[in-house]
């Protein structure tokens, strides 16, 4: 058997050692196969660890594919002084494409082009696939059988989200900034969100 304290220590060390978020399943099956620990015990240990770290410099955070320790946000600016590598910036074209895939998945390239009104460069799709933010979910049953894209768990992990629900809400079309509302009844709108 293993004491609660030992269990917490072990899980804590495992999360710290992993370079990807660590799932409860992986903790159970790969870290603790010999100890016979039930999932609720693991969950309780994670809760205790999370509480312990709240007042510290790092926090235990749950993202889509599991748990990871993140540097407390308030220290980011100071910590950034230590690293030389500048974070990458992404173009508007890439972000708009990513937004469409995230919110309207599964979506084909030509559907993305319809909304954006411009061609989507292969460069953007390739970059998104290589970053493992999007993947091909299947092929649409229309002539040419185009790929349908969707987002991945890695995409959610990267933005520290647990699920797609946590993406910011889309603005309702009525709140479109360019509507003054003087002649609302001129055109019948039925636009799906």
């Amino acid at each position: 058997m293993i004491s609660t304290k030992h269990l917490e220590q072990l899980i804590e060390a495992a999360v710290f050692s992993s370079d990807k978020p660590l799932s409860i399943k992986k903790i159970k099956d790969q870290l603790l196969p010999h100890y016979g620990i039930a999932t609720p015990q693991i969950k309780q240990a994670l809760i205790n660890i999370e509480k312990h770290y709240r007042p510290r410099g790092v926090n235990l955070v749950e993202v889509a594919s599991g748990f990871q320790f993140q540097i407390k946000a308030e220290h980011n600016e100071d910590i950034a002084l230590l690293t030389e590598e500048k974070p990458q910036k992404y173009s508007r074209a890439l972000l708009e494409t990513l937004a469409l895939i995230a919110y309207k998945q599964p979506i084909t390239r030509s559907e993305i082009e319809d909304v954006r009104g411009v061609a989507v460069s292969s460069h953007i799709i390739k970059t998104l696939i290589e970053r493992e933010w999007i993947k091909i979910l299947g092929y649409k049953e229309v002539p040419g059988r185009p790929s349908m894209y969707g987002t991945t768990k890695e995409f959610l992990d990267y933005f520290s989200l647990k699920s797609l629900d946590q993406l910011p809400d889309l603005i309702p079309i009525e709140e479109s900034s360019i509507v003054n509302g003087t002649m609302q009844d001129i055109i019948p709108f039925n636009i799906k969100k």
Partner: protein
Amino acid sequence: MQNNAEHDQVNKLTTGNLQAGEMQQQVLPFAFIRGEAIVEKPQDLFIPPDALEIILESFEGPLDLLLYLIKKQKFDILDLPIAPITTQYMSYVELMKDVKLELAAEYLVMAAILAEIKSRLLLPKQQVEEDEEDPRAELVRRLQEYEVIKRAAQNIDELPRLERDIAIANASFSTTFTYKTRAAEVELADLVTALQAVLKRTQAFEHHHIAKETLSTRQRMSDILTKLSAANGNHFIKFESLFDVSEGRHGVVVTFLAVLELLKEQLIVCQQVQNLGDIHVRLKEAEDSYDQH
């Protein structure tokens, strides 16, 4: 009527034919920064053609440009005044042509759509079938749908994300622990295949760039840089010490070519204090470039 001045500007923009020579007096009524912030420029500010290009390039496409025009003029999108919008849109498209911006076909398609809507609106009311939708409806729907996504993209960009806003906390195994994660194995052939795949895809390089001769010069460039950075940062080392006579004539030539290449790429500095004196070499420092200005 706070918009009067703006309208005048726009009218100038739309009626004036924007030849390159008139650019001096031509005032552009806006600037476009990071795709969003719109700053009024002083009236007399001259925008050089290449800056104009940047401004025009910052539109993500015809829908983006239309959205900008509608916002700019505070038009009510539900009462979309097609005539002035079309005129303004065309003036921007003309501008793009003038600065020889590679004009995406999509901009011209949109121009055609606008012209078509305009002509349909000009038809006398009774000739239009009763149940026919307002010809602007489809365009308005697209504009709104695009705006929703444009805003969503901005929101995603603002989300905290790894590398930029989130740092991961990691701990390592103690140095005494011999376990090492098994790193992936690579065969030399994989490397060659990989490079050939890139080259085949891009065909960006002429093959002779990768011929052996160049390669050894490139390696020598790396060696020299390594040597210089090992020489305690910005200390000079003797030019001669870069050469190894035992390599023979070929080796000396390769080294010399490498030094020339490094000088050309401004990666190193050569200095000769006296005529016929020793030549010294060191890495180029950040400050060096400031000195030159």
